[in-house]
């Protein structure tokens, strides 16, 4: 249990190490794009192939009106049948090239894109594995989820849009070049509307940016509310809140709807302008083109090609305006993804840290001070010595720092340099790799956590090569075997969503079995038996007595019966060790332990009949 004061301090310190959910509105961010480049490196060959096929694809498309112009001007108007056949053959050849390039382009781009996303997802997950527990104290799971899944999904959409956009830009350039070659005069005239288009876009952009930011904010609110109310549905039903919640949800959903409609009004507002500019360009080309043809400065086929080009020219622009939201969204996602990847793990192995050798289990806390927030110590100068094989109980009132103490031992958090040290077998644990420490310790937490999967998978967890007999023996030892056998598929029963189909106590038994399979040198039990009845608890303790032989155990518990058998009892109060000793010694001292014991006993005493 977190100390009362400590937990609140953590809340106050949220600013540091917490991911920001600011909404961004840029449609292009150089840094995001630059950061993605390294992810493409391993696919260099594929990328070049994609670029090459894209160029070929664009060229073959730009060539189409040109070939038509040639056919009309050189052969059709000249009445040349054979020439026409040849040009048609060329045309078909061009089409085949287009086919090949198109397929290659799409396939390679899809592959490159998926590889990139795969690497990003992998890196994010890997990075998340390195984050310490305090990172997860500060960041809600839902928000991280939306980064790893939602934002990567946005990037995926972005990639397909980006490819279309690059293709569009390429064909824009290709068309501009073709048009200018056909006729410089007419080319310049047809491109004359572009500055106006840029102007229109510049005016439009800030509105669009704001509107789409509103949309994303509204969507995040709707999703957050859904997530929370679905996970809390049991409370919602117990409290009869459905009607009220439906109302609240409807309001949020309504705002989301309105924001989207508003944004669509703005984004579709650009279309008429683009259409108008296209029409003006075509009108200008026709008007001046006709003059040029009249004065024999231009051929008819060229004019046809011109009209075709101009229609094509504005298509990319149209689609660019439609992709604008997607670009904006993707950049925001990119920023968030890289922000996550850049979060420095606040607990890292020192450079060159060596593994902890196989340990005997001697633990020493040396002047350990610790705080979640600077200046507010949760542990003040804790000194504690545990011999290999000892079972030590940590006792104390709520907020004494019990959970913090064991969290430090597992290196969920690190003791700051100069604020004491924790030594195992004489090694300062900060100087060794965290993994080698964790491999030799195990923990059973107050709230049992199981994974979706079978009972068998959950007991074995990382030790998937453990033989069945050993796994069953562990289950029997903690008294879980009987109820597991009674499940429909025994050890192969699938546990849904962290085992909701089991009672909390049953889940706890499985997590005990998991800890036993882990075969640790040091076992930490953090109120592990709070949700278990005394009889089952006794079975577990009985099993542990044998199992713990030669191992060190640290036990946090409220129930007296759990504590009394410990070799040593450490009484914590306000972050300091107040007393140490075994039960009898502490009772004799008549200090805090004796007081706690008396209080506890008084509560029970009422249950003793006269």
């Amino acid at each position, binding site marked *: 249990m977190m100390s009362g004061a400590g*937990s*609140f301090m953590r809340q*106050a310190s949220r600013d540091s190490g917490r991911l920001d959910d600011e909404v961004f509105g840029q449609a292009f961010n150089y840094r995001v794009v630059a950061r993605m480049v390294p992810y493409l490196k391993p696919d260099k060959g594929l990328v070049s192939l994609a670029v090459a096929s894209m160029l070929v694809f664009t060229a073959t498309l730009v060539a*189409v009106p040109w070939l*038509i112009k040639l056919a009309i001007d050189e052969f059709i108007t000249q009445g040349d049948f054979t020439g*026409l056949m040849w040009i*048609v053959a060329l*045309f078909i050849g061009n089409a*085949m090239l287009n*086919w090949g390039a198109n*397929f290659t382009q*799409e396939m390679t781009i899809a592959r490159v894109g*998926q590889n990139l*996303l*795969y690497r990003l997802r*992998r890196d994010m997950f890997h990075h*998340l594995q390195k984050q310490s527990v305090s990172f*997860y104290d500060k960041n809600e799971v*839902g928000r991280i*989820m939306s980064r790893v899944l939602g934002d990567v999904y946005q990037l995926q959409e972005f990639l397909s849009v980006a490819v279309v956009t690059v293709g569009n830009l390429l064909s824009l350039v290709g068309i501009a070049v073709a048009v200018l070659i056909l006729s410089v005069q007419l080319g310049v005239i047809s491109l004359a509307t572009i500055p106006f288009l840029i102007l229109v876009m510049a005016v439009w952009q800030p509105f669009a940016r704001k509107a789409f930011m509103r949309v994303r904010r509204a969507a995040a609110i709707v999703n957050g509310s859904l*997530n929370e109310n*679905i996970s809390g549905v049991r409370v919602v*039903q*117990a*409290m*009869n*809140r459905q009607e009220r919640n439906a109302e609240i*949800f409807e309001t949020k959903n309504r705002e989301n709807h309105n924001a989207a409609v508003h944004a669509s*009004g703005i984004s579709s*507002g650009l279309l008429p302008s683009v259409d108008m500019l296209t029409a003006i360009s*075509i009108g200008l080309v026709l*008007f001046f083109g006709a003059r040029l043809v009249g004065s*024999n400065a231009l051929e*008819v086929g060229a004019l046809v090609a011109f*009209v*075709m080009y101009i229609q094509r020219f504005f298509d990319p622009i149209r689609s660019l305006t439609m992709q604008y939201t997607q670009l904006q969204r993707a950049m925001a996602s990119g920023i968030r993804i890289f922000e996550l990847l850049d979060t420095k793990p606040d607990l890292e192995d020192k450079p060159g840290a060596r593994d902890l050798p196989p340990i005997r289990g001697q633990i020493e806390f040396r002047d350990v001070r610790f705080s979640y927030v600077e200046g507010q110590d949760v542990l003040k100068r804790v000194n504690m010595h545990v011999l290999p094989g000892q079972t030590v109980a940590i006792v104390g*009132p709520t907020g004494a720092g019990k959970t913090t103490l064991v969290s430090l031992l597992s290196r969920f958090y690190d003791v700051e340099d100069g604020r004491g040290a924790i030594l195992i077998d004489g090694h300062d644990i900060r100087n060794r790799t965290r993994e080698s420490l964790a491999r030799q*310790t195990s923990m059973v*937490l107050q*709230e049992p*956590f199981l994974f979706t999967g079978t009972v068998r998978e959950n007991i074995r967890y*990382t030790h998937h090569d453990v033989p069945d007999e050993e796994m069953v023996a562990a289950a029997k030892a903690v008294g879980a*075997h009987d109820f597991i056998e*009674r499940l*429909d598929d025994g050890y192969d029963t699938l546990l*849904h*969503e962290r085992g909701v189909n089991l009672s909390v106590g049953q889940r706890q038994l499985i997590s005990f079995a998991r800890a036993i399979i882990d075969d640790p040198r040091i076992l*930490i039990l953090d109120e592990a038996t*709070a949700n*278990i009845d*005394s*009889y089952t608890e*006794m*079975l577990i303790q009985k099993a542990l007595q044998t199992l713990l032989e030669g191992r060190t155990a640290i036990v946090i518990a409220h129930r*007296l*019966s759990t504590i*009394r058998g410990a070799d040593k009892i450490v009484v914590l109060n306000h972050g300091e060790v107040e007393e140490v000793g075994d039960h009898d010694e502490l009772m004799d001292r008549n200090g805090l332990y004796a007081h706690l014991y008396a209080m*506890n006993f008084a*509560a029970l005493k*009422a249950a003793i009949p006269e």
Partner: protein
Amino acid sequence: MILARILALTFAHKWLLAISLLCVSGATAAYLVLPWLFGTAIDEVARVFDGGTVSETVILRISLTILAVSLLRGALTFGQTYFGERLSQAVAYDIRNRFYDHVQNLSFKFHDIHHTGNLMSRAITDVEAFRMFIMASLVRSPYFAILFFTTAGILIWRDWILGLVALSFMPVLAILTAVLRLHLRRIWLRVQEDMADLSTTLQENMTGVRVVKAFAAERYEEAKYEASSTAVSDDMIRASRLQALNTSVMVFAYLVVIGLILWVGGMRVIDGHLTPGELASFLFYMQILSLPVQHAGMVVNSYARAYSAGQRLFEVLDYRSPVQETPGAREMPKSRGHVRFNDVSFSYDGRTPTLQKIDIDAYPGKVVALVGAPGSGKSTLVNLLPRFYDVTSGSITVDGVDVRETTLKSLREHIGMVQQDVFLFTASLRDNIAYGREDASMDEIVDAARVAQLDDYIRGLDEGYDTEIGERGSTLSGGQRQRMSIARAVLLDPPILILDDSTASVDANTEEKIRTAMEAVMKDRTTFVIAHRLSTVHKADEIIVLDRGRVAERGTHEELLASGGAYRRIYELQLRPQEEVMMEFDVPAEAEAAVR
């Protein structure tokens, strides 16, 4: 079937649909006039070849007409996208509301097997797939239809030979589309399932971070994640390959047809059957056709996606909660809270019984304590009372009325429950306590917090009752969260109280204080208590010891101690050193053997 249901949802917004379709049709018509105008202009220009001159006024007139038509088209395109978006948003809004309301009312049985992440992905991704289909495909269907049929008609009418040549790629398109749709639908369904696996692994990895860290399981978890991640990538690439094949073939077929038109049309121009302008307008029409050709692939994809999304959405929306209000269910009158379990049996799966033949008579003012090993059925028993699940046989009555004959709302209003798994909402402490009773006054809230021994702690916070707490209340300790949950139930002021292991994480002193405060609260109410600590249990009017779903023992504390059964054993265990008790009672041989 699924398409029909999507259509039905869309038809609910008749006016929006009508106006969108109207705009689409108008815009398409305007769009179709353009190639004809271009052609006329080219013809005018082509008169140069016959020795004529180009009339600038005619060209000017045509140019201005093109401008006017484009203006109209622009306005209608605006209408098309704007109203199309409104329509799709309106449908998405409806589905989201329905989905939410449906899910929040489904009984626990549904939520036991459906992962939150899974439901979320349906509510977000699948609804979005739906929306995209309506906007990009459904609303634009007249665009495709009109473009295809009018263009086909015009082409054939102008020159039937050329027209038939121009349309020869249609069958290719149709066949490709049909084949593709079937394959894509399957792949999309698989992608969605892969994604669900991925998100489950991710979510559990983070929620269970302490377990992962404690077991040094990072690499194991990465391997698990990698497997799902690879599956997603592979299936996505498979889908892309199909799409790439499809679009490239379509564009190819289309280009070949243009080549053919150029050839056949060119010869006909040379023959004098066709003017160059007519050939040009043919080509312009073909260019117009290129857009729907490119889009056809996207439409197919969006339909395949919407179809699999629809399957997943309707699966949830069609799920009928096993806990149903009977037709004509009555409001439960203000009850006194006299609860009876009559021969109640219950099974989660219809096979293995979880509870068997339970009889309980709990009158107002009575405290019933439930004791037993994990999985003996304690939580299940209390979950039956508010009808989170329905009994398999037997009945539960409140004041003589069968709970299945009343409305769920009125029934649950009579019950205040502290659940074992505490869930707090992202809101202030005050709002969390007042969750079930928003109209509660500040005094009432403070009183409830006092009973739960939280008032002092909350007052010590800088922002007191206005302090915001995070998701799942992660900023509070386990004991504090349990106490929040107690305060929440106390504030409801219900005739029936259920406390499911509600003080397990609270230290003995605080527990004692809560118990004393609760004594006053429990007076005149019917209370069910599940607990492991004797101190909580011993004062109960009736203690029921459950064993594998059956009542093993029942009676008062004194009676049960006297009878020397399982309860006596618990008592001994909590009061006397463990070693002593172990000597006295036989620890099952099995446990002994297992340890060796």
